[in-house]
């Protein structure tokens, strides 16, 4: 087991290194003069020169790359062009709301999608199956912000059950926190629920057709025990894999959800950075979110041991 964990951690190093290279290299691959683009149309030549200097575009490529990687290893993601604050500091300030939203969304999605997919497979071709299939296709087709506005219109504007926008940290009390985060989390969960429902259903359908499920049924076990203990445990590896891969999708959705609900998280930081073309922030957020993705997927790989006893040796 320690061997597996070590192997996965080692395999993550080249991936993270290449992510850093991509984030760094984009600045050079972009057509035209990135300093001029970032400075905008009304910038003076001095502004452009200052930005070129602060991005280090005057230095030779490999010198700059060396400095960038060295900084990165020391946890330094550069400084914002606009506010001159360190990017790590800016990100740290915004981390709380984003983590709250992401965690609540994951819990909500798994709690809804796994039972839905499992029951859809067990009662194939029933109304339950039909609901799961519909959720699986609608969640992929309706963009996050459309679902978000629909929910706001019904539950905030018309029924006034939830606030239209805004965020309250967990320290203000769990109910206030939930009150503000429920609609954002449901909107963000829509894609994720679609993804997990689909894979749960497919994976369960495969398992349910196998002999040991028939054996379990013929010896008189109840449906509940067969579905949740026998079938779902064996169907779980593809499900947790997709939950891990879906993190990338979730991170993309966070940006949109935070914009709709004015949540002061990483997504808002990013959108503000886009408007000001503050590339170091964009770069930093990209590296951070990719690192989170890699970390979550390492956890997913390690969780296989939990689901599949064969991997324990």
């Amino acid at each position, binding site marked *: 087991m320690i061997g597996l964990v070590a192997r996965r951690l080692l395999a993550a190093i*080249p991936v993270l290194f290449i992510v850093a290279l991509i984030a760094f290299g984009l600045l050079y691959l972009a*057509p035209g003069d990135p300093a001029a683009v970032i400075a905008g149309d009304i910038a003076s030549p001095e502004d452009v020169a200052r930005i070129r200097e602060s991005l280090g575009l005057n230095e030779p490529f490999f010198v700059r790359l060396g400095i960038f990687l060295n900084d990165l290893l020391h946890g330094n993601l550069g400084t914002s062009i606009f506010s001159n604050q360190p990017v790590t500091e800016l990100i740290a300030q915004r981390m709380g709301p984003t983590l709250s939203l992401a965690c609540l969304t994951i819990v909500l999605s798994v709690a809804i999608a796994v039972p839905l997919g499992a029951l859809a497979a067990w009662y194939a071709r029933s109304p339950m199956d039909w609901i799961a299939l519909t959720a699986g296709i*609608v969640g992929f087709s309706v963009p996050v912000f459309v679902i978000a506005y629909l929910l706001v219109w019904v539950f905030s504007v018309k029924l006034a059950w939830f606030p*239209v926008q805004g965020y309250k940290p967990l320290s203000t009390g769990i109910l206030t926190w939930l009150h503000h985060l429920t609609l954002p989390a449901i909107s963000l969960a829509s894609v994720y629920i679609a993804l997990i429902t689909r894979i749960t259903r497919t994976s369960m359908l495969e398992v349910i057709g196998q002999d040991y499920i028939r054996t379990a049924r013929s010896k008189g076990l109840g449906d509940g025990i067969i579905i949740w203990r026998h079938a779902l445990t064996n169907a779980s590896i593809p499900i947790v894999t997709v939950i891990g891969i879906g993190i990338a999708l979730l991170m993309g959705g966070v940006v949109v959800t935070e*914009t709709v609900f004015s949540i002061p998280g990483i997504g808002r930081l990013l959108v503000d950075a*886009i408007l000001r*073309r503050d590339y170091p922030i*964009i770069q930093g957020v990209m590296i951070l*979110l990719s690192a989170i993705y890699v970390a979550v997927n390492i956890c997913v790989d390690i969780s296989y041991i939990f689901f599949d006893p064969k991997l324990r040796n």
Partner: protein
Amino acid sequence: MDETASHRFGRLRLARSLGGPVVVGGTLLILVALLCGFVPLIDGTDPNAISPVNRFKPPSGRYLFGTDGLGRDIFARVMVGGRVSLIVGFSVAILSMIGGVFLGIITGYFRTADAVLSRVLEAFMAIPAVLLAISLIALTQPSIRNVIFAITVSEIPRVTRLMRSVVLSLRNQAFVEAAVAAGTPVPQILWRHILPNTFAPLIVQATFICGSAVILESILSFIGAGAPPTVPTWGNIIADGRNYFQLYPHMIFFPAVFLSTTVLGINILGDGLRDQLDPRMVRNI
């Protein structure tokens, strides 16, 4: 379809397949394409014409979908916006197929290239597609062309991964081994034996990519990292309506309905195609 072919497929199977999701999805898509393609030609309303007197007009006979905060006709804007969305969707689908097929064949067939390229692909998969596209856009001037480029770059790894797994399973099949044993040159194996057998999963994947590109484009426009604000796109129109949404929901409602219907059509079409072409090869999503 000629008589012999329809006999070979069997009339019943043809009828059943045409009655399925492919028809529903295809019809939705064609309907939106025809509307957005022809209505602006017939209607002739300038989607950017500002009319301060007619601000925030609700839907009516004159303004079918109402007007926005500058008095622009939302119906005309949604129609023109649909063109942008569909152009982006189809362009990204085609371009990422070309790139993904090329890279997928290399990684799937040549072991040494695979070792390196797979790591790079893994890294690209770790970066959320929206973020990769945003970073590319932030470094270039906003334009439809750059949006297409940015979304294509973020979709190519997905196509490559699918293509790689298909090629990997094909190269171990008897007909490919036979061709290798017969001394067939590698380019010919790839072109004549491998490539034609990847079409079914590729077409399905292309459909899903088209759908996800339409969504990505609208997201990019919505957060201000997409097409320039002067170009009406569904994302831009929704972003314009954001601040007035509580008072004038029609500003968001109509573009949102068109956007969702279009992607729904594309995805239903993709699901239908997958079920018919080869259910085993494209299980993953």
